[in-house]
């Protein structure tokens, strides 16, 4: 274990997408790696198909459960506008790992709001927040791996390739293997690999 002051992950998405599950896997992976861990989440009403956010933090100087604004090392967005909604947490020059498949809110279908183009979101992330955009259709890869529920595993796989990510990819893979039901291990391993590959492609690794 490499001692670190703090590493901050912000996970965002739509209630029901598996944000809490992803946070849990990363939290346990950090704990097993020997780090002090804090995670923050909100339960109750906001989980019902609304916008959700979870925080996973680890390191010696981590105390609170929420990532401080402007201090996030990486945002994992399960949905594009949800990644942008919490962009205030990202540090200057941070990373955004994002599933580019949108979920259209009811208000947009009703014609009361507009869903932005992916390019507009990316532009703000890159130009205003000077962040690295690692966007791909994770849902498509999850379906390829066997089921849409593995979208979170795809995204975690991609996260392990982010420069300076403190946890070892094989270590994270092991935690996933132990966390998912036995019959789902194979498809999750496949999803994890697809996520790694997607991120490597984008990062030119």
């Amino acid at each position, binding site marked *: 274990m490499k001692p670190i002051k703090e590493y901050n992950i912000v996970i965002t998405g739509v209630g029901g997408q598996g944000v809490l599950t992803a946070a849990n896997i990363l939290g*346990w992976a950090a704990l097993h790696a020997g780090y002090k861990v804090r*995670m923050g989440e909100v339960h109750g*009403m906001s989980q019902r198909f609304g916008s959700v956010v979870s925080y996973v933090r680890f390191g010696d100087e981590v105390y609170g459960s929420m990532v401080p604004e402007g201090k996030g090392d990486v945002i994992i967005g399960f949905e594009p506008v949800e990644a942008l909604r919490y962009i205030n947490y990202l540090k200057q020059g941070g990373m955004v790992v994002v599933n580019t498949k949108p979920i259209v809110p009811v208000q947009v279908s009703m014609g009361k709001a507009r869903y932005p183009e992916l390019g507009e979101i990316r532009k703000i992330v890159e130009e205003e927040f000077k962040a690295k955009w690692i966007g791909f259709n994770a849902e498509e890869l999850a379906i390829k791996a066997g089921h849409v529920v593995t979208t979170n595993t795809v995204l975690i796989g991609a996260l392990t390739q982010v420069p300076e990510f403190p946890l070892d990819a094989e270590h994270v893979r092991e935690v996933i293997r132990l966390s998912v039901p036995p019959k789902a291990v194979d498809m999750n391993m496949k999803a994890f690999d697809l996520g790694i590959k997607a991120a490597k492609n984008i990062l030119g690794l």
Partner: protein
Amino acid sequence: MAKVTDMVLWDKPGEKVLLLGNQAIARGALEANIAVFAAYPGTPSSELTDTMAIVAKKAGVYMEYSTNEKIAFETALAAAWTGVRAMTAMKHVGLNVAADTFLSSVGMGVEGGFVIMVADDPSQWSSQNEQDTRVYAKFANVPALEPSSPQEAKEMVKYAFDLSEKFKHFVILRTTTRSSHARGDVVLGELPEEIKSGKRKFGKFQKNPKRFVAIPAHSREFHPQILEKIERIREELSDCPFNWIEGKEDAKVGIIAPGLSYSYVKEALHWLGVENVKVLKLGTPFPVPYGLLEKFMDGLEKVLIVEELEPVVEEQVKTWAYDKGLRIPIHGKDLVPRIYEMTTRRAVTAIAQFLGIETPLNYEELDAKYSKALEIVPPRPPSLCPACPHRNSFYAIKKATRARGIYPSDIGCYTLGLLPPLNAVDTTVAMGGSIGIAHGLEIAQHGSLSEEGRKKEKKAIVATIGDSTFYHTGLPALANAIYNRSNVLIVVLDNLVTAMTGDQPNPSTGQTPHGPGKRIPIEDVAKAMGADFVAVVDPYDIKATYETVKKALEVEGVSVVVSRQVCALYRIGQMRRRGEKWPIYYVDEDACTGCKICINAYGCPAIYWDEEKKQARIEPSMCWGCGGCAQICPFDAFKPEGGEE
């Protein structure tokens, strides 16, 4: 990997596990050899109760989901009177429900330790108000402990039981959303033999009318005793292991950090790189231990109190300083907001301002960039789930009243019926409030049926209330409406589970965590109370629901319709676990005319608008197969595909 709820009962002292704050508290209660636990669920306290529900039987603990917080409080209190250790848990507004018993019984004290866990919700993530339980602690003269981490939460429970027994007094363990729902590494401690062997512990009640019968002649003696007790506790807390002074001993400036705010202060000081300060870490915001405070204040030239919500610590510190003749600047709510939750940003900003230094981040710049980003972000409030039976009930109610009714509602998932396109909630106040509000609106606008001069108009006030909420505080309100001859319709949205807080059982199903209890059908209660019309419908049959509601509106008096269908989220969870499949609906492109009724009147989150084709579409991963869309579409455009998972 083992289930977290199993870890809570692990006999592995020294093992480090990742626990939710609420689960850490459950573990603490087990390590403290708790005997009785009774609670009504409420976010953000629920996981404590749910964890206890799972481990209770194995640990030999009596656990129950009580029907409301007052009853839970009484159950646990009485248990503590018999000499065993007891705990109750609730969200902050739950203490309002329990307040009558709470404030009337403080003076009676306890024999076995009695810990009241109350979870506050600053920023109101899932609550109707932002009250601060520490104010209740002061009001009742009961100590309030507040942890700064999951580990501390666990240790505090044990300490709280000891403190309660030592002083025969109640102890509040106050958390907030960010401590109850924080996960962190927790080192497990020793479990008592009785918990390990699952041996149930029984108490014995010793009669003592002077203590337990609160007639004025008896209870008049309580008040001086309570005041004397709380001052003795204040002294004791100077040596409390959760209160300490840290930082530079000869520093001229000091920061007081109560409860969870300590964690934000620590991060802020690291970030700011400030070392020349002294910090008073307070695990007991009420009462502030004056002995320790005096030691801390010695030599300080100015002080900042970084406190969330009400200035509870600030007022105690300022009062103490005034009485001591100490005239140094004491900052608090002038630099730290009194509203919404504490964050590292708030701590950093307040401390920087207090010390006259720059923040490490230019927040103005960040805010400007961020508001630019938000301009293109569409809102995504929570919504009723796909296949939620409440949607159908609301749809039928709106149709039967031609959207001209008044719709008082209650606390639960169904409050989300407020949002467009349903717009089917006009008022929501507090648990069980829908019926009383409906009755008040009716008698104010039309009068009671027993009044001769009443205005005779067709019934148009439709209250909605959930099954658990109905048993929580709806019962006396229904009795009142019937007794006082109201003319309202009450639709009980019975989804056979306490859905919002995590699928807890309730009297409508009669299940308990430990097996069958006794079922109390809502319709039987309504009939027995003398409601003028009682019917049960399945909201998955929208037409039948509409017709029943219409009929219920025709009847003069109090009508009760029980709209019964199991919670969709709960059902889908069960089906997934069993590997079962359900039909996925799709839009027949030849049939869809683009009328948008499904989107603009029904509003299932699985249905979205295809802007190019000007037609409705279903997101298959979100369809839970209820077929409601097929019932409301005038053009039969929604069709089921064979059961895909």
